[in-house]
């Protein structure tokens, strides 16, 4: 019972990270295609920045839970993929600092470079865990985050900037759908029914995003691409029995931690919700 709680919490945090931070990286990846000059790029980035701090910390919390509740998995997972994790961290550091300090065009080098390193290394890590081809996942996750970022911008911006973000999003929909379809035959020995259903669901959600973009229901398109970003995480949890009790901490650790997590979770959700609410009012 306590074990199931921790697996669910870890899944929720990682899925939340992909769905939320995914558009942070995506906005950085498409900023040069959406904003033609510096004032326009600033407007594009500042559609995302109010959420940035709240989005990135989902990863921090996920790794904290990984360390506290799954200590045997944490060391194996991170040290077992040393190269990819190092690239991920370098990308995260570059991106995190550049977002917060950007005051001119040259900061776009660490900003876009960092976002690219992050999405490529997440692709490589997912490919590694699922046994798929690295290049496909690296390109695919980068395209997926870019799509998510573009759809977010369509939702949050207006006028010509929205039109250009919309063009980006339309361009990216088909390649991402192809990526989702290709993952099924190319992925290594995983329980195919569950994994195949995830891919089918991804393609359906991308279709829904397309319909929503056409119907100008931009908020719903964003929800759809957010769900697609979270899907690989659920696929990993479904396809790989990564979280058996032998990698988990003992009940003496899990019980007190669970009380603390249960106490904090409502606070976190309330204040994350407040961030979205306040920024909506500011739009």
């Amino acid at each position, binding site marked *: 019972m306590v074990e199931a709680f921790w697996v669910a919490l870890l899944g929720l945090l990682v899925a939340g990270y992909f769905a939320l931070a995914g558009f942070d990286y995506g906005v950085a990846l498409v900023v040069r295609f959406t904003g033609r000059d510096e004032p326009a790029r600033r407007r594009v980035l500042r559609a995302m920045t109010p959420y940035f701090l709240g989005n990135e910390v989902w990863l921090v919390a996920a790794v904290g839970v990984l360390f506290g509740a799954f200590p045997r998995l*944490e060391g194996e997972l991170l040290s077992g993929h040393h190269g990819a994790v190092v690239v991920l961290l*370098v990308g995260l550091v570059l991106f995190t600092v550049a977002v917060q300090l950007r005051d001119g065009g040259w900061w776009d080098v660490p900003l876009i470079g960092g976002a690219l390193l992050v999405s490529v290394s997440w692709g490589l890590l997912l490919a590694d865990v699922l046994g798929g081809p690295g290049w496909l996942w690296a390109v695919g996750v980068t395209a997926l985050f870019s799509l998510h970022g573009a759809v977010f911008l369509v939702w949050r911006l207006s006028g010509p900037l929205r039109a250009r973000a919309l063009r980006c999003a339309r361009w990216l929909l088909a390649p991402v759908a192809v990526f989702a379809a290709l993952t099924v035959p190319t992925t290594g020995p995983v329980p195919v029914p569950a994994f195949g259903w995830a891919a089918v669901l991804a393609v359906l959600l991308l279709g829904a995003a397309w319909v929503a973009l056409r119907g100008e229901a931009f908020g719903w398109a964003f929800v759809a691409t957010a769900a697609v970003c979270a899907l690989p995480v659920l696929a990993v949890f479904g396809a790989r029995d990564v979280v058996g009790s032998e990698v988990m901490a003992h009940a003496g650790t899990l019980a007190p931690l669970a009380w*603390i997590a249960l106490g904090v979770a409502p606070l976190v959700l309330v204040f994350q919700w407040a961030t979205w609410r*306040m920024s909506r009012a500011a739009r």
Partner: protein
Amino acid sequence: MDALGLARLQFALTTSFHFLFVLLTIGLVTVVAVMQTRATLTGGAVHLRMTRFWGRLYVVNYAMGIATGIVMEFQFGLNWSGLSEFAGDVFGAPLAVETLVAFFLESTFLGLWIFGWDRLNRWAHLALIWLVALTAYASAVWIMVANGFLQHPVGYEVHDGVLRLVDLGALLTNPTFTVAVAHLVFGALTVAGVFVTGVSAWHFLRRTAEVDFFRRSLRTGVWTTALATPFLIGAGFGQFPVIAQFQPGKTEAAGPVGGAGLGVMIQIGFTLFLVSWLTLPLLWRDRVTRWRPVLWLMVIGVPLPFAAAILGWLLRELGRQPWLVYGLLRTEDALSPVDAGGMLTSLIAFAGVFLVLAVADWVVIARLAARGPDPESAPAPVSPLVPAL
């Protein structure tokens, strides 16, 4: 150098960078919270401008703190997987609490504080900065709980060759945690006090027109330093009996670097204590703001508490060797199965990126600090993250 040496060097370098930024974060957020409290209570325009100016420097400094913090969190699993395998049940618990209770909430609160400026009710906005401060302190507390466990393991039992947590309360009353966290907190306040003093002194050297603004800031800085340093020194010396009891021979284990560092740290601590108390009478009628040699010393002194903090940290960590978990797990036995080439690559990558970004961050801080506060009529946002309205 072998993989072990490279991994240790990597940990020392990344921790030192992280430490430089979090020290100022913890100290400065306290100063900013006090400034904002005065602004909210009195409605004084100068206090509000001070909150914005010092708050902006705080936010820019935080940017690098969070970035380096992410690397710290991953590094245990990345390079020291033996630690989580053997002691993860105990050592991982405070780290997990730190990320959930402190890091996660701190960033969320800070985001709300940044974007709630001029939008939220002023009391709600004031509450947010205190929540940011509170969670920053909670962060320090839980990290030091984890570190205190490495120095003197408590609250555990050994089962099947790995540790199990049996008493979380023992971790929280661990003598290697309690005195050390007080030392750390007063160190952070000293860093902030010296920083605020130095920046204000610089503006008087440049014959600033913002006399009232920097007069008040300078007083805040000097008083913060003067009030923090006695407790800083007390909690520093308070650790010697604990060390004598649980880690005899710590200074020898730390080697010549750690031993010399201890001496320099103590010198810096006493110097800051003395000069801050000697400056207090000079604050009368703001005499000190016209005494240029003293102002110069205040500017030059800014790096001193940072240097002392790094030296103290080196002593604490080097003096724990050859143990990772004192008496239980040797550092060499905790190393991940990663070859020296991979370790060297990651060391170069992290050190290079941190160095470039830290310098960039300090340049931004120096520029913003030198530019001075915004004119009252046209205040700029507190962070570049804020969308233009």
